[in-house]
């Protein structure tokens, strides 16, 4: 059914149940918003999107008011504009508005709003009570002085991730958004997925910036600085640098990183292929020798943190494989160091990841294959590498395409799709199917495990036995999978879990403004990358086979075990 109304005296016809906000947008009027975010719940807390409805006493929030037949809406009367300005000025009066000294400068929704509303001066005196900054973890920094209490971080943490670390404390103007007991954000509760930093409209939750450390080391002649790039970055960095969502920038990305001064630019896709070989063999071993099933993937550090903190009883189900990032670090400081005859202590490994939890993962004490030396030295998010490229003045769009460096440059389509939900599962199935059934797959595309549905299922024939597998993304969905296992009700043999919506393409370290629309664009691009690769199965990567022949021996063997596998520890608090 269609509904007819007037917005600013213009006739508007929209489907029923449309909000005034969306109806106005359909007729080319953008009503300003602040707490509203496309994929989150509508709280109508901030009141910025208020409009006048003729015949109604107060102002109504357009984000939460549904159109009605005959309604007359005025979106920009002096009364409405004054209300919006007043709210914004009040927010600014209680905000650390030193905008030019803020990571979100020119990327801040409050700043943009003040600009759109034409706020040239603030009628209110500054009342900000300065509170301490929380930087007590390796991933995220909370600056309560910039928080505007919009509630997006609470919503994403509570409802999308089901973790619920952040909640409002106190009441009225004393409200702060905080972990329980007013504590710092640490691994006691937080998984460091960073979704809160992704949706924060201001600079109140941001990643721990490590760009300065990378600049320093790039200009240190004693250091051999190499970089690895995660699968999802090739379809998201373009967006960070002003291109369309999902633009594939693999070749330009390599050129850009060379311009910054990295000696070698490697592809985490290589160790994603390696992960498939190790994890695939681990799965086959568990299935054939009566090992613990279902086995769950372990590439995602947010998921690992979640399992260690909230589901310690299911840790035996996690694959013992390190993540591709950590496998890369381990090989860089052993295999690569030996091959190039470089002292591992001088090798500095930087990762470009769509993720804030990867920063935590890299700092885990067990992640050092050589003495007193972590395998991955610094992890930069998509946003941080974008920042460095802007600092460098790189004209990204004009760069030539360059190939990744050897020996970690040749990869397969299977590795590329690690960056989306369902990708690791599909990559694993391509390999496990062929190893077990000893015949090539007819179709490489496992459509059942693709797409944005929260939990996906598929069945595969492995050696005459039908095996059920599942794919879950977001921690709220991972929780359902974990509960099934805890209660001995899991019908699956193998499960992929990615902590962020859409997998790494929707990671907490990706460009600001990530929505389900941009996630879909990035996801589609990764499958385009996959389809265009000459090799699409990890076990056909000739350099992986060479790595085993020259260095590792065989999958799951002694050296592989030492370098590529790890153990998990229960964090006992929640038992």
């Amino acid at each position, binding site marked *: 059914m269609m509904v007819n109304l007037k917005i600013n005296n213009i006739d508007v016809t929209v489907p029923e149940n449309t909000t005034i906000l969306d109806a106005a947008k359909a007729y080319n009027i953008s009503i300003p918003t602040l707490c509203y975010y496309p994929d989150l719940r509508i709280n109508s807390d901030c009141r910025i999107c208020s409009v006048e409805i003729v015949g109604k006493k107060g102002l109504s929030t357009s984000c939460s008011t549904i159109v009605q037949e005959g309604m007359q809406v005025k979106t920009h009367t002096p009364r409405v504009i004054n209300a919006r300005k007043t709210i914004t000025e009040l927010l600014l009066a209680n905000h650390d508005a030193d905008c030019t000294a803020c990571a979100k400068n020119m990327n801040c929704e409050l700043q943009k709003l003040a600009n759109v509303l034409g706020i040239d001066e603030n009628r209110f005196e500054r009342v900000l009570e300065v509170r301490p900054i929380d930087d007590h973890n390796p991933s995220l920094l909370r600056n309560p002085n910039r928080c505007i209490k919009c509630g997006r971080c609470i919503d994403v943490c509570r409802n999308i991730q089901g973790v619920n670390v952040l*909640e409002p404390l106190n009441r009225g103007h004393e409200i702060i958004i905080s972990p329980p007991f007013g504590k710092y954000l640490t691994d006691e509760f937080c998984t460091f997925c960073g979704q809160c930093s992704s949706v924060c409209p201001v600079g109140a939750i941001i990643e721990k910036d490590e760009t300065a450390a990378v600049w320093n080391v790039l200009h240190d002649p004693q250091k051999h600085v190499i970089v690895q790039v995660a699968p999802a970055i090739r379809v998201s960095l373009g967006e960070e640098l002003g291109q369309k969502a999902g633009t594939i920038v693999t070749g330009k990305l390599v050129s850009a990183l060379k311009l910054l001064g990295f000696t070698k630019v490697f592809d985490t896709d290589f160790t994603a292929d390696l992960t498939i070989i190790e994890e695939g063999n681990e799965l086959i071993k568990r299935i054939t020798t009566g090992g613990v099933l279902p086995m769950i993937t372990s590439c995602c550090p947010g998921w690992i943190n979640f399992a260690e903190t909230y589901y310690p009883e299911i840790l035996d189900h996690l694959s013992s494989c390190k993540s591709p990032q950590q496998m890369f670090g381990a090989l860089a400081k052993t295999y690569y160091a030996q091959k190039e005859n470089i002292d591992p202590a001088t090798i500095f490994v930087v990762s470009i990841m769509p993720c804030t939890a990867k920063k935590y993962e890299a700092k885990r004490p067990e992640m050092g294959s050589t003495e007193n030396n972590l395998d991955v030295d610094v992890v930069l998010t998509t946003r941080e590498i974008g920042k460095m490229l802007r600092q460098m003045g790189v004209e990204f769009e004009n760069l030539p395409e360059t190939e990744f460096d050897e020996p970690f440059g040749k990869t397969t389509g299977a590795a590329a799709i690690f960056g989306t939900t369902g990708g690791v599962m599909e990559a694993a199935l391509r390999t496990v199917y062929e190893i077990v059934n000893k015949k090539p797959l007819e179709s490489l595309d496992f459509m059942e495990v693709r797409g944005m549905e929260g939990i996906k299922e598929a069945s595969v024939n492995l050696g005459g036995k039908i095996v059920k597998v599942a794919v879950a993304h977001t921690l709220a969905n991972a929780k359902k999978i974990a509960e099934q296992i805890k209660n001995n009700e899991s019908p699956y043999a193998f499960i992929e879990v990615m902590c962020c919506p859409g997998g790494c393409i929707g990671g907490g370290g990706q460009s600001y403004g990530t929505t389900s629309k941009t996630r879909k664009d990035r996801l589609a691009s990764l499958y385009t990358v996959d389809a265009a690769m000459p090799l699409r199965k990890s076990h056909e990567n000739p350099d992986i086979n060479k790595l085993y022949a020259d260095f590792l021996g065989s999958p799951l063997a002694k050296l592989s075990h030492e370098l590529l596998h790890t153990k998990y520890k229960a964090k006992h608090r929640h038992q």
Partner: protein
Amino acid sequence: MTLESMIQKYPASPEYLVEALRDYQMAKNDHSVTESEIVKIAKYFNVTESKVCSVVSFYSFLSEKPKGRYVIRICRDVPCFVNKSESILKTLETRLGIKPGETTPDGLFTLEYTGCLGQCDHAPAFRINDMTYVDLTPDKVKAILSEYREEKS
């Protein structure tokens, strides 16, 4: 009464959280709930610790900070004000040596403000724990405080 036996009187469902917290705190001399108690309560009602902290910090009757054995909540709404509640507050402050939001060093009294107690026709009023006192005068306040002090000793 132990925490366990107290909360088990309520169904293990989040909507009973506020009631259980209030009753448990009333039964405790320091009118507060500790971190380890919150951990247990959260588990029982199947909510996160963050949620319980949020609820406790929202309601002024609930507290993570230990309070005195007797919590005096004085009304600061208009009818009490025009009936000289300021002199009542002043008497309390002088006799107890504390300001609103503080607790006496012996842990006996905490002084707090409250909203209207519904006793406007008998203003000024305050509450001590769950007892309401009305038509207050400075002399009456002194007598009430002595009573509570004696009760303790």
